């Protein structure tokens, strides 16, 4: 009798404790929905599909299918809002969202959504910009540009919305120029900005290495300023940093590419995904087919470090826009 009771009690104890152990080992058990808040063919879309492809090839998702879903409503805000609201449970553990600094900025500036409504999973890479001149530009180096502006000329930089604007503001502050002296034209995409400089309508273009690469190779664009603390490599090595040109500090505004999940994602799932992304970031395919090809800088942060990084970024950005 006593033995029986002890047996039953220990069974119950195991039954209660067992699920705790089961929680630690998360494995995808249904299809994974990965939301991208920009249209197919764009930078974020390519980033997502390449990672999804690597994950499937390296069998990191338990043979489940990754469904990439482009949700572009409201400039992407609707997609982000819907991910943040996914209720706890299996769905939350199987929902991913591509999230970059260029997504965070308009989100916190124009809506009430904040990073606290998401579970950061990883940061995978950073990108930085350069300033380029075209074949028809009047100025051959950035030092010439600074001299020209100081003697009264008006210079125009073309760039893309989001990150580029923030970098421009930083550059403006560092150089001590006004918006009239060194103007910035915001375009919907970097390709539009490059179009305008190829036609000779603006003096400089701000771009990340990937978008301008083909033009640099063809000789139609020449990098003249590296918006970074150290020079770039390869065919961008000739561009000096700001401190090399004059008595200025280097200007850089790193653009990070990451992944987040809904707030209600379980910690076990977050840890699992963080490990998966770590494996991807260390894979040869990632390094060659994405980082090298698109000239980003590899930069992996796991879920906890990513959370700190994104939260701090959000805080700094909100302060800079006065919120």
């Amino acid at each position, binding site marked *: 009798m006593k033995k029986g009771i002890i047996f039953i009690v220990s069974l119950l104890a195991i039954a209660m404790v067992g699920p705790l152990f089961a929680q630690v080992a998360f494995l995808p058990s249904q299809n994974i929905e990965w939301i991208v808040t920009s*249209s*197919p*063919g*764009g930078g974020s*879309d*390519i980033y997502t*599909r390449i990672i999804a*492809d690597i994950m499937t090839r390296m069998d990191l998702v338990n043979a489940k299918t990754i469904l*990439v*879903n*482009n*949700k*572009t*409503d*409201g*400039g*992407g*805000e*609707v997609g982000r*809002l819907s991910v943040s609201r996914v209720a706890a449970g299996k769905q939350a553990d199987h929902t991913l969202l591509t999230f970059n600094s260029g997504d965070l900025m*308009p989100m916190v*500036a*124009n*809506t009430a959504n904040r990073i606290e409504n998401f579970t950061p999973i990883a940061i995978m890479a950073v990108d930085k910009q350069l300033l380029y001149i075209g074949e028809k530009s009047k100025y051959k180096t950035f030092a010439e540009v600074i001299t020209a502006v100081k003697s009264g000329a*008006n210079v*125009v930089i073309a760039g893309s*919305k989001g990150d580029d*604007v923030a970098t421009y503001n930083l550059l403006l502050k560092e150089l001590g120029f006004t918006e*009239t002296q060194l*103007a*910035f*034209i*915001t*375009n*919907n*995409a970097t*390709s*539009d900005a*490059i*179009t*305008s400089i*190829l*036609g*000779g*309508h*603006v003096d400089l273009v701000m771009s990340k290495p990937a978008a301008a*690469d*083909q*033009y640099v*190779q*063809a000789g*139609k664009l020449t990098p003249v300023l590296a918006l970074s603390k150290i020079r770039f490599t390869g065919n961008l090595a000739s561009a000096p940093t700001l401190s090399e040109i004059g008595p200025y500090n280097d200007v850089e505004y790193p653009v990070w590419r990451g992944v987040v999940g809904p707030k209600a994602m379980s910690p076990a799932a977050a840890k699992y995904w963080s490990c998966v992304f770590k494996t991807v970031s260390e894979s040869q395919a990632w390094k060659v087919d994405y980082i090298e090809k698109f000239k980003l800088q590899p930069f992996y942060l796991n879920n906890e470090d990513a959370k700190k990084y994104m939260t701090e970024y959000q805080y700094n950005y909100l302060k800079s826009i006065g919120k």
Partner: protein
Amino acid sequence: MDNLNFLLQGFQIVFSLQNLAATLLGCILGLIIGAMPGIGSLAGCALLLPLTYKFNPTTAIIMLGGLYYSNMYGGAFSAILFNIPGDTPAIMTTLDGYPMATKKKRPGQALSISNISSFVGGLIGMVILTFTGPVLANVGLSFGPVEMTALLLFAMTSIGWLVGENPVKGLMLTLFGMLVASMGMDTLSGSPRYDFGNVYLLGGVPFTPFVIGLVGFSQVIMLMEQRNIAPQLVADKLTLRDSMLSKNEAKRLVMPSIRGGLLGTFVGVLPGAGATAASIMSYSAQKYFKSEEPLGTGAVEGIAACESANNGAAAGAFAPLLALGIPGSGTGAVLLGGLMLWGLNPGPLLFKNSPDFAWGLIASLFLANFIALTVSWGVIPFLIKILSVPTKLLIPCITVVCIVGSYSTSNSMYGVIVMFISGILGYIMQKFDYSYAPLLLAFVLSPMLESNMRKAFIISRGSVRIFLEKPISLAFIIAIACIALFPIVRYFLIKAGLMKKKTAK
């Protein structure tokens, strides 16, 4: 002549079994997708792009290119038969296509005209692309913000005649179109406009559902009023032979098609302007040329002008895409992404590094043109039979297609809601005799006009002189001045006896 050799090599590449199949598939899919209201080449390419991830790049681009191109053929089908544009470049086709099909009871002829002029326009575009692709792309580049502003202002003067008999109504609609187009996120300043705190409105009013609703769904509501009226056309009159064009009509469509093709190709090359803008500008330009019947009542010239322009633009859009790696339109951006996905690097070096790919694509477009013409001509009898389906059966079918099309633009019900609201709006407008043409013209052109104008002013630091300093822009400004002053000048000329007064018919 070099280019001709390259083109012939391109044909060799196309005539492989795999690539031929891809062209055929792309064409047929494009025709179907084009005919379905709401689903256009952008949605089609975006949906199929992930599937082509693993294809051979040449095969993949041939299929998507064929789809993009034949989409322009298909768009006219539902525009002519139901007054619902199959995709946005076909908006203007409804203005003459539908009256010709219904009031004049000649749907077969309308479809034939649309097919032939699409073919001519596309052929012109491709020939230009073959021989002057890179040069043309550079010409397109020389149109910066200043020049585009001047061009768009010129295009908007055409509202002057589109407003029809009541200028006040027309102006109201134009301004309303501008207001609606301004909703959403302003790129230049990064601040939201008229979003009313709603997350969805942050992205503005999506174009395709708005058009589908305004033009198409309002038409469905009108049909609902008439649902018990017998079908308008008797089935036994509708054979292919009866859809043949008379010699006179065939002659009449030649010049508008050639003009439309040239204009369309050029507009397709311009940054930011695509097939929709091309067909609008071509239709507006047609006003300045002779047409035997007044435009808007089922004129041959009207259909020919739009359809040739949108096909020309589709061909022209490939010039900056292939020669410079710059997408000329939304669909171009998807194709560009595709190029990158398949491991190719679009840019100035594409022709040099991957000539097989580039010339294979151009050759396949020629082939696609022929296939699309043949197939769309062949289906005319079937399409016409649709008209004899009882109205009350047609209504739910068209409604479903509209809903699916509006949903697919952004994978959400937002598009559908926009469609319903704009449908009701369109219906009210039709009831009170407001034409939707000025509203749509303003909706398409004013965002481009605004962004280019503001960029031009940033470049010139607020000075207006820059519009007169740049040669291309100066040319357009002079043209606008001529058009604006012409009525006054004519008045004086008539008074002075130098010009005969035209008696009103």
